[in-house]
């Protein structure tokens, strides 16, 4: 994952956003939870840094590889 982009691992619905813009995260931190086929799938930070922009909102429908949020160093 380049440029600190966190993308959806698959099709589903955003059910929880665990960070706010500006928050400091470590690589591997859970940042968003997607629900797909009735399973909650944690999405983790691709690298350490500051959450720059959250592109989705809770309840949004996402497809595989859709941008969820960006992290800047």
């Amino acid at each position, binding site marked *: 994952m380049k440029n600190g982009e966190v993308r959806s691992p*698959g*099709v589903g619905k955003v059910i929880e956003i665990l960070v706010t813009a500006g928050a400091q995260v470590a690589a591997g931190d859970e940042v968003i939870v997607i*629900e797909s086929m009735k399973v*909650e*799938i944690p999405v983790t930070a691709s690298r350490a840094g500051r959450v720059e922009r959250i592109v989705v909102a809770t309840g949004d429908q996402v497809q595989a590889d859709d941008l969820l949020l960006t992290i800047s160093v």
Partner: protein
Amino acid sequence: MVERGVGEVVTKEELGGSQIHARGSGAVDNEVESEEEAFAAIRQFLSYLPQNVWQLPQRRPPDDDPHRREETLLSIIPRNKRRAYEVRRLLGLILDRDSFFEIGRYFGRPLVTGLARLDGYPVGVLASDPLQGGGGLDAPASEKMTRFIDLCDTFHLPCVNFVDQPGFLLGTVAERAGTIRYGVRALAAVYQATVPWVSVIVRRVFGVAGAAHGNTQRLNFRYAWPSGNWGSLPIEGGVRAAYKRDIESSPDPEARRREIEAKLDALQSPFRTAEVFDIEEIIDPRDTRPLLCEWVHMAYDILPSEVGPKRRGCRP
């Protein structure tokens, strides 16, 4: 050539690199960093296979206890049935230690496939990965399943399937990808295979994709963990369909739906339905390895009658 043909200007790497073929198209199964690693991977891959279809896969002196019972297996499936878990960790606790050789990790990711050993005997392993689309089979995962089963069937590798299958992936993208066509091919591959089979139902078995978790025509065992949950439709979606009128005519449809779901949820138990679902046995998850090691001996007892080329021919 590409530029003349379709007007696309690309580099060699962009066209035929592992980025596109191991992580996109599925034309390449595994990628490694160096030539040495490539040879090591090929050597390991071949170690599970017989020299040709007239021979059987070779047992290695086992280096792991067939009676090993891992306590972690009791809690590896989360009590919250919506929570995902690390399926590769589960495999590591059950198969011969360090024997799992994964094939096609970055393609068709809802399904994990690979070769491994049980008490030294080579087997093919399939497992759903709930962290990838909940483990629901999509078109690439179905294609991966078809190819993998054909590989196992061709070379007489008994198959172990760890099942947590919510069904084929839903939604317009999945429909446009022709998921059901690829899915039916995978089902056909399962039913055409004549290798011994064992399914361990670790959690869900739903839908048409769930129906393809085993082949009842040959030596086929089914063990289920107490976390097992099966049927044609899960309660969450099924209630909406079956109680549609009841829910719609209620003053508070949402509350009525939740009420019906809670009532059915409380009744739900694998022990009530194991018999009608033809589950031979609900087992203590810790017994999985000992039971699979027992099964693999039976499987290899009947394999000598299976050697030779398969009648179905090659499915490219």
